[in-house]
């Protein structure tokens, strides 16, 4: 047995988590992110950490990497010049898009631009019907000629090939792809049917173009890292985290870089699920709040909820509909524009509003003293006493309370004619409400009852707000995990190798026989086995899950049905109507309809063995150091409407079994947990701080 290392690149820090698989000893490390060359921080931090912990790199069996590279490339539009070949007559699908307004009252709404501009799209003669039959043969020469024009005259480095109905038959796309590749071996080419053969051209093509767009830079980055790791003597496996909560090999990541989007938050949610497993809390809310956004995930039966849709790079106040839609397997996450940098202001309603605009890290909140004048959530939390100015980021950064107070008065208190403490409390509480609302609405959308569940709170700002939010949601228990600031890096260590995919192939149940059922899953199973086989996972180690999206014929809404493991095709077919009915009733709460049922999408999820983090897990060793003896501070609690004397405890000095009674601040380097008057928490065997909330 050796060591495994998780590396997660964040906006400010690159986080490392190292586990000794033999002893279960877990250590963490942080290095400033190097935005100009993110690989540098990874390689430097890795060396520094291994040196600190006296671990020989030859003993490292795997490095699991989570990166925001792809997300940032789409948001900042730093991908490669990308071209697109489409079925004749359909060049404008990316512009026609959803034909839908995401806000009916704001007439100045804006939408994300497609990553492939119209001038770089070319039409190709070919056409298939919805059942896959050929209506017009592919003009292969025309496809190559169009690609040549784009390469030679437009300088494209990547190409997306998007034909209609390729989910039903991919041979035109494959033929065009192969011919173009033969002519231009250096061009990165993606066909829509390989990214996700999902029926709905706009979303599939949007996904395909984004995949092509980020392929060159992902390839360069991964090659750079692989070479760097090899140069240091690393001989283990290099794995990349995806948005679905599984890892893939670097080769798979190169083919499907779009799947790396939002992988950091996915690792955090996965870690929350793992904590839930250890604490026997199968129903959880994972709550992560940092500098600009808050992210939430709902965990049911020990696993984060998943879906096949995601929107990135929203251009209008984080509003759904203003971004680029993607169809990839993802952990279902809520994202709201609420974080430490969220700016408070008086809105057109003449009331307080917080976010979604953020002061970011630069200039940052007013209290950072870097020229920011706007009042932010961090300024409010400082004024309320939840942040202690001398202890911010482990004392590495001084905060200026007077600047915070000024900003609060100028931006909120003055215009609304309230005292600065009241303004600060308002800002804090508005964020609590916004987060609670996002959870409530998402739970309502999918029919999730969270009232007996627990919340896991992490990220730089999450633990400061968690108890108030939990009260609003009537959640009885909040877990403040040890290492809240590096949850995603630790989560990487809990992630199995996996590959999920989906294809659309409508089929009426009444006309389906066992052979057709088997055949429907076959290409997905083959692809999953090939992907994981290449990473050395086969036989019993491979876990396969088959799911179907089914609906009543003529209805627009599908429900997901999972086929019991290893059920033979004819038995599975016999069970399908009953499985569908159960799943349907869970959503619609209604009696059975005597309508015909059809399958729309076929899904396979394959994964390797789960890393044995749970059994081995213990409190991360943040680095031996003497317990800090912090002086008392004063903190505002609205129940008393005044600043109360409040002890500040060193999180690293709290041993398992320790009990804390509020009011108290529990300080760790990257976050502060806040307990109000009368609230209690205990430290469990893993080092988690657990607060139980009494009703009321």
């Amino acid at each position, binding site marked *: 047995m050796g060591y495994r290392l998780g590396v997660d690149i964040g906006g400010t820090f690159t986080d490392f988590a190292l586990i000794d698989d033999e002893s279960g000893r877990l250590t963490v490390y942080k290095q400033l992110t190097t935005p100009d060359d993110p690989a540098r921080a990874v390689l430097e931090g890795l060396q520094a950490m291994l040196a600190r912990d006296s671990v020989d790199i030859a003993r490292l069996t795997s490095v699991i990497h989570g990166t925001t590279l792809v997300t940032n490339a789409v948001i900042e539009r730093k991908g490669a010049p990308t071209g697109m070949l489409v079925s*004749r*007559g*359909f060049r*404008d*699908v990316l*512009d026609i*898009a*959803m*034909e*839908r*307004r995401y*806000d*009916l*009252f*704001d*007439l*100045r709404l*804006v*939408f994300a631009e497609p990553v492939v*501009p*119209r*001038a770089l799209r070319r039409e190709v003669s070919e056409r298939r*019907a*919805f059942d896959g039959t050929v*209506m017009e043969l592919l003009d292969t020469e025309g496809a190559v000629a169009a690609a040549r024009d784009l390469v030679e005259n437009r300088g494209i480095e990547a190409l997306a090939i998007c034909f*209609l109905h390729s989910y039903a038959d991919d041979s035109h796309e494959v033929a065009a792809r192969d011919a173009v590749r033969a002519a231009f071996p250096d061009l990165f080419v993606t066909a829509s049917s390989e990214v996700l053969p999902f*029926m*709905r*051209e*706009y979303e599939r093509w949007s996904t395909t173009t984004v995949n092509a767009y980020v392929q060159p830079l992902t390839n360069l980055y991964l090659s750079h890292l692989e070479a760097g790791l090899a140069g240091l003597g690393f001989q283990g496996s290099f794995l990349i985290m995806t948005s679905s909560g599984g890892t893939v090999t670097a080769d798979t990541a190169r083919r499907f870089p779009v799947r790396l989007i939002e992988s950091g938050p996915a690792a955090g949610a996965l870690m929350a699920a793992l904590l839930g497993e250890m604490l026997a809390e199968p129903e959880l809310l994972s709550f992560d709040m940092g500098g600009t956004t808050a992210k939430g995930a709902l965990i049911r039966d020990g696993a984060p909820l998943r879906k096949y849709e995601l929107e990135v790079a929203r251009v209008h106040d984080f509003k759904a509909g203003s971004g680029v839609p993607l169809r990839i397997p993802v952990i279902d996450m809520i994202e709201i524009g609420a974080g430490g940098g969220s700016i408070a202001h008086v*809105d*057109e*309603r*003449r*009331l*307080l509003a917080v976010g979604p605009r953020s002061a970011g890290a630069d200039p940052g909140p007013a209290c950072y003293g870097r020229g920011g004048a706007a009042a932010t959530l961090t300024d409010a939390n400082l004024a309320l006493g939840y942040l202690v100015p001398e202890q911010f980021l482990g004392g590495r950064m001084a905060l200026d309370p007077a600047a915070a107070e000024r900003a609060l008065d100028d931006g909120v208190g003055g215009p*609304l004619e*309230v005292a600065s403490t*009241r*303004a600060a*409390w*308002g800002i804090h*509480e*508005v964020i609590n*409400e916004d987060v609670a*609302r996002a959870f*409530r*609405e998402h739970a*309502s*959308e*999918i*029919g999730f009852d969270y009232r007996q569940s627990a919340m896991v709170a992490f990220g730089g700002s999450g633990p400061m707000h968690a108890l108030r939010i939990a009260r*609003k949601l009537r959640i009885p228990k909040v877990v403040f995990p040890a290492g809240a600031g590096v949850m995603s890096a630790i989560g990487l260590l809990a992630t199995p190798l996996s590959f999920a995919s989906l294809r659309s192939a409508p089929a009426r149940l009444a006309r389906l026989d066992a052979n057709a059922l088997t055949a429907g899953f076959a290409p997905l199973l083959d692809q999953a086995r090939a992907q994981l086989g290449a990473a050395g996972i086969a036989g019993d180690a491979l876990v396969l899950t088959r799911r179907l999206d089914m609906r009543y014929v003529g209805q*627009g*809404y599908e429900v997901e049905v999972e086929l019991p493991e290893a059920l033979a095709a004819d038995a599975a077919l016999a069970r399908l109507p009953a499985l569908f009915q159960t799943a349907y009733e869970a*959503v*619609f*709460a*209604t009696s059975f*309809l005597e309508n015909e049922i059809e399958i729309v999408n076929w899904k396979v999820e394959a994964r390797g063995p789960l890393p044995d983090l749970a059994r081995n897990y213990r409190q991360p060793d943040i680095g031996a150091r003497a317990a800090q003896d912090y002086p008392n501070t004063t903190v505002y609690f609205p129940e008393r409407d005044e600043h109360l004397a409040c002890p500040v405890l060193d999180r690293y000095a709290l041993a398992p079994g320790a009990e804390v009674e509020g009011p108290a601040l529990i300080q760790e380097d990257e976050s502060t947990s806040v307990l109000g008057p009368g609230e209690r928490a205990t430290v469990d065997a893993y080092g988690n701080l657990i607060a139980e909330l009494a009703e009321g």
Partner: protein
Amino acid sequence: MQRFDPISLKILWDRLVSIADEVVLSLVRTSFSINVREGYDLSCILFDHRGRMIAQGNYSVPSFTGTAPQTLAHMLRDCPPETLSPGDIVMTNDPWMGTGHLFDINVMRPVFRGDRLVGYTMSVTHLPDIGGAGMSSTCTEVYQEGLRFPVCKLAEKARMNQMILDLVRMNVRVPEQVIGDIMANVSCNEVGGRALLEFMDEYGLEELSGLSDAINDHAAAAMREEIATIPDGVYENAIQIEGIEAPIELAARIEVRGPDIAIDFTGTGGPVRASINVPFCYTQAQSYYVVKCLTIPSLPNNEGAVRHIAVTAPEDCILNAQPPWPTGGRHSVGHFIVPLLMGAMEQALPERVQADVSMMNVFSVKGHHRDGEEISSLFFLAGGFGALSGIDGRAVTPAPSNMTVVPTEIWENLTSMTVEKREILADSGGPGTWRGGSGQETVFRNDTGNLLDLALMGQRTEFPARGFAGGGDGALRRYLREGGEVDGKGRILLAPGDSVVMHEAGGGGFGDPLQRDLVEVQRDLDDGHVTAAGATRDYGCVVGAAGVIDAAATHDLRASRAGK
């Protein structure tokens, strides 16, 4: 009276809106109707015990803006508060009490805290069917359009009235779905009532009326302040729109006096013998919507938000059609209230108004697949959005209501028709300093092997989306087939193998097109919104052989045109 400082008011108000949104989401999740699921053709509202509206869910389409208080007043007139018990459910689908046509079911539930009435919740959804001839334009009276329920108790003390459910079941085409949707309304109101009571517990509120007054007064004050910034005056507009036999005249007069706006529709033509008449509640909702867009778009809907807006229309006009005029397709006339009022406000608020929108194209397709199975589907296509000062109208963007794209891959599966082409239609957006949104060209081929029957309900086929402030009009909506143009409100019988071409209308432009930035015109050329010929004709641009604008020559051409 209780007092709430701005911080408490913000938090409590937003929570109430959030409760209404939560009700919406649970309704969407359990509804069968495609209109509800994809188009948010629904509304959820919270009231205090006096029937004063406190909050409405954010997601509703414009036709539900502020209609609910009147609906509730009608309900309470027929079922007074003292006759209500916990577990009662009151409903109606009367077009004149509800939201303008029989398809919309209004479901209300009183909320009791112990035995004290503290408020009401209400939901409205567009049902999949209501019997009768439905939305067919052949109806001449409301009686032909389906079932019409007066205010009635769907449940008394939590016991459903089986008679009403049976009546529905026996009179509609898809009974399971319709009953399912009615029950979705019933259960979402339970969700709302429960959330309202928990909210009161959490914040220690014995009743809602104090908070309701604070919220509504604050909203009214914000609106008052905003309306006061609009120059006082009388602003008028009259437009013509496509009718069934003859064009329909719509006229509006808006008077702004200090903090008040009065909107009147005198001069508007009379009702017609087709299902496009508009009950007044719908006219009022669209009017509120326009004022909201022009003042504080983000202000949550409530009683205070519309307190300073008075809407009137004479009883003999199509915008205040009385029973028994048919109203099933009231939106096809009612949607034009938006451009009508925007046009009136062009002089008063040039920086805020939107040039005319192009409306949606909805058509139905009936026929049979090759295997004989029936085809019956609706297709939706958007035209271009109207431009505003400072922002181009977006291509193919629906307005004033909403829709969602029908993917080609889905449509071909559903109908075995073939879509030959979907393309942004160059030169269709109204020229302007800010260009109107482009329409699109769509070509359908009948590959079903059988005759297909297309029923068209197109607008902007005679009267284009007008440009504002010197901007040009958008192109008209057109239906073409071999042999020529087809009437936009007619039928097309498409033989196997035949094609039909549809051109969606463009949105109106804003401002003088000769003032449009050359960078923008060049982008339009590159992105296919404008052809070289169009750039010269509409924008005074000289375009070289490579499709690049010649700046010097353009300068001269524009100067000579401006001189004329």
